[in-house]
Every structure is written in C-alpha cells, then in structure tokens.
C-alpha cells in the first residue's frame, strides 16, 4: 500500500495494568529524530486496557498525536487481537513508518502485521537513520550473532516497519505539561476470533522485579559464580550500585537463578551504562545480548576468555576475592 501521510508511528506496548512499557517511550525519542529529518508527525499508538496512564506517558515523552485502542480484549497481549487492531489502524491512516519495541510481544506482532500489509520489516534494530540518498529509513541491525551489522532499506512498500531493541535509545526527559491530539478508535474483536487462550501464568520472580531492559547498571553472573549462593556477593554489589542482577545461560540452566534474569540471544537484550560480567566466558549468544552496553567490565580468572574481547575493563582474577572488596570499596566511596 501507499503511505497516506509522512507520519511516523511508535507502537506503545502496554503492560496488563495499562501502563506503558519503557521501550515505547524510548522509541518516541528515537522517532523524533527521524521525524525532524523526514517531516510528518510523531504518532504514538497505544493498544491496551485502561490505557489512560500510557496515553499520558506517550504525550509527556513527545508524541504529537496519540491513537488509542482501548478494550478488555487488549488487557493481555494476544497476536490475533493486536494484529487485527494495528492492521486496521494502518489501513485507515497510512503512516510511512512504524517503530515497534523488540520485546517478545513486539517480535510476535511485527512480522504478523508486516506480512498482512505485504511490506518489509527489519528486526531487532540497534540504530536508525534517514538514508541521505533516498529518504527511506535506514535500519541497522546485527546478524550472525552480532558478528555482522547490516543496514536495510525498504524502498518500495509502505509502511516501512522495524522492531528496535529495548535499551538502545534512552528515554528523553518527560514533559508533563505537553499536550497532544488524542484520537480514540473503537476497534473490537469477537472473542471467538482470538484463537489462543491464556490458561495459566507462571510468574518466576514474585519477590523482585527484573527490569534488565531499563537498568542503568547490570551485575551479571555466569557458571563461574559456582552455585546459587554465588549470586549473593553479586546481589550485594548490585545493591550498593543500585544495579539489576543479570545472568548467563549456564547459570539459568543450572537453576541458580530464574530465566527472567538471562541476558543474550534467548534472554534479554540490554544496553545499560555499565555491565559487569562476573564469571561469564562470553559465548557469542551472551554477547549478542549485551554488547551495546556503554561500559563493560568483565571479571574472569581466565585471561583468554572471549568476554575480554568486548570488555572495556578486563579484570583478571578470582571473583570470590574481588567482589567483596569491590563492594566494600564502593560502599566507602558512597559514604
């Protein structure tokens, strides 16, 4: 289809309680940069249940217009209901580009909708620009487990769509005094058209919230921490730093820490200011999830561990000796 407008849409994914997930708000900032170059409006698209707070956030973080689809059937994400709603909106308004957060749901929704629209989708982008020659969005993304970067264009079909990694773009300062045009769309699906059913939710981490994607500092542990108790010094360090605890797959598979903490190809993709890897060898699947961190500190007793190839600070030594001292020193610094 052809674009009816030059508008750029940002899909604002919501939580079950109707609040906005962080990544959508990050992408409003990224979208603003693109809109400034290509023209058009920056539109936040909110789909969810009881979405007032998400709509407010979208405005505060920079949307010129917010399109809202609200309804009970959108409380918990389903492919059928969300794809139906987003597709209907695109048909009606014809945006030129759409940014979607590369969360589990975003990566479930994106291909479904782009395929229905017979247009291109670039997955899991880590940088966005406007191509000088053609004016298309230049989507840059890692491939081959992060060994290669590719810049992709979608020149002939609209909208051009991309999913973008959480944490790559930082949220701008919210401005609560901003106003925006709010458009409410009444789109509903018959429950019989939703072909999946949520039977049970198994929450792994009732005692803490693991927001790795939004974290500024992450302290991660791998097989080198030696066991579930090995995460204790890590947690202490995380506490004094105000950091979130991450993990490599080996520690998750061993049952030392829940999967929600896992960083990497089959875990979360993170981009904190500081990433501290303790006892992690640096397998390609782990690096794929954390290489865009600003500063990487790796602690490993094996000088040849591949993690040191991506680290800014290569700390060679036994983490059981190093971590407690590190924690104590930082405590001292803080007081």
């Amino acid at each position, binding site marked *: 289809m052809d674009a009816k407008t030059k508008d750029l849409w940002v899909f604002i994914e919501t939580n079950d309680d109707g609040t906005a997930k962080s990544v959508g708000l990050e992408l409003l900032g990224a979208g603003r940069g693109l809109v400034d170059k290509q023209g058009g409006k920056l539109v936040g698209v909110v789909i969810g249940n009881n979405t007032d707070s998400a709509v407010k956030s979208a405005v505060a973080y920079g949307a010129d217009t917010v399109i809202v689809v609200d309804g009970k059937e959108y409380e918990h994400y389903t492919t059928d209901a969300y794809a139906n709603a987003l597709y209907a909106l695109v048909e009606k308004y014809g945006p030129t580009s759409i940014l979607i957060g590369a969360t589990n749901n975003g990566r479930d929704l994106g291909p479904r909708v782009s395929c229905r629209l017979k247009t291109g989708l670039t997955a*899991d982008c880590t940088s966005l620009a406007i191509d000088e020659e053609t004016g298309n969005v230049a989507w840059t993304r890692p491939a081959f487990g992060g060994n290669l970067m590719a810049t992709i264009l979608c020149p002939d079909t609209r909208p051009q769509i991309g999913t973008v990694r959480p944490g790559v773009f930082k949220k701008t300062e919210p401005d609560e005094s901003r106003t925006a045009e709010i458009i409410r769309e009444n789109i509903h699906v018959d429950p019989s058209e939703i072909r999946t059913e949520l039977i049970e939710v198994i929450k792994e981490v009732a005692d803490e919230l693991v927001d790795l994607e939004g974290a500024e500092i992450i302290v991660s542990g791998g097989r080198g921490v030696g066991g579930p108790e090995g995460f204790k010094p890590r947690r202490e360090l995380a506490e004094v730093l105000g950091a979130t605890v991450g993990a490599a797959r080996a520690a998750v598979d061993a049952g030392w820490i829940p999967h929600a903490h896992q960083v990497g190809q089959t875990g979360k993709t993170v981009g904190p200011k500081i990433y501290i890897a303790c006892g992690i060898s640096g397998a390609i699947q782990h690096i794929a999830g954390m290489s865009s961190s600003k500063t990487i500190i790796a602690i490993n007793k094996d000088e040849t561990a591949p993690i040191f190839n991506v680290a*800014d600070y290569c700390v060679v030594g036994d983490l059981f000796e190093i971590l407690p001292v590190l924690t104590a020193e930082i405590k001292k610094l803080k007081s």
Partner: protein
Amino acid sequence: MNMLVCVKQVPDTTEIRIDPVKNTLIRDGVPSIVNPFDAYALEAAARIKDKDPSSQIVLLSMGPEQAKNALKECLAVGGDKAYLVTDRAFGGSDTLATSYILSSAIKKLEETEGKFDIIFCGKQAIDGDTAQVGPEIAEHLGYPQVTYALEVFAEDGKIKVKKEVEEGFEIIGVKTPCVITVTKPSFDPRYPTVKSKLAANRKEIGAITAYDIAGIDRERIGLKGSPTKVKKTFTPPVKTGGVKICEDCGTATAKKLIETLVADGII
C-alpha cells in the same frame, strides 16, 4: 498429530571469525549446521510423537542442494519424511518472500501428506536472527501462532504450549491448525544413533521447485518479491585495548579497578 517442521541450514555462527585486515566475515571452512532452534522445534515434535506414535513428522527446508544434509540429520532424530524446496528463482528472498514460498510449499505438500495440525519453526535462524519467518508463515496460511515455545503438549487433540515471556512462563492453549516457534529449552535434543543415521541416509528427499508449486506468484519470490534491500553490511567496531587489570591478589585488583573507574569518571 500430523506435524511439519521447518528446518534451515545455517553456518555455525560460533565458528565465524572476522578478517582483521579486510574487516569481513570469514565464512570459508565454517561448518554448516542445522539451525539450533529448529533442532529444538524438531525435539518438541518428536516428544509429541513419543506419546502418540501414530503421529507423522514431515521436514521442510528451503535452500540449495547442500541443505539436504541438514534434512538427513533431522531424519535421523525423529523426522519421517523430508522435502527440499530449491530453485534458483528463490535466491535473494527476504523473510516475506521466504515465508511466502514455504507456505506455498506447505499447501502443496498437504495435497499428498494431509493437512498439518502443527507447523513448527525455530524461534529464529542464527544467521539472519530475524525470528520473522514463523509468524509470517502463520499469516500467509491464516493460522494462529504461538512464539517462544519451550514445550508443547498435545492431549486429547488439544494443544498446550509452555511459552517464555518476560516475567516467567505462560501456558497457552491454541487451536489447530497452528504455527508454533520454539526457543531453547533447558534440555538437549535427542541424539541420532548409528542405526537411525543409516536409515536416514537411505531415505529419499523430495524436491520441490517453483514449477511444482501451482499458482505461485513469481512477483512475490526472490529479490523481486523482497521488500527489504540490504544497503550495506559491515563488521561492528571491535573494541580494542580494553584496559587489563590484574594485580598480585584479588584485593589489590579490586582496588586498582575502583581507582581506574573513578579516574575514568565511570563511577
């Protein structure tokens, strides 16, 4: 259950090195393997077949002749039949074109193999890392989808999926026919035996070309049918000269690290 598993042959990305002079990927000598996520998908199908031996598992791959090796490997660990979709005209396809070709091939296969209840894909292929082909096949066929599956159960004709989500897991019920994409579970997929390898080697692999798929739209395949175009590829800037910190003992190392971090303004 009548099941189909989509299998892609991929270069083993853990073996890929960067040519430090030319700054390109060194692909020579990199072994080709079954995409690991597809092996997990096959394992999920095989576990359903373990419980219901009347089930059938059909394997489908799109790629060059060489991809038959990947199919043979999969025949040795649970696949009953295998088909390769191969044609020069398919070259250069992006995920939209690939999923269109695979879904067209699936419809064609259903004429002889019967309707598939579940179409399995890996979560993603480790070369492109897109995770798009599965959901796009579902869209082309008009089927429901469940992504990020860890385990799949078929009981009394009902499908239940243990799905990985950010906060933990969900159990999702899904109507058949459906598409399920599988991520890495905590168990290893089964290994072939000498006997199963020999048997797999003797099996015929059916070939499907564009001509075989009646009604395939030639505007929608290959480069022409691919809305996304690669403008350029480059190797990510390698971090060189990470500061090495290694003192005589852990305490000294930790202190040195703090000093350095403070001096560099990191903390």
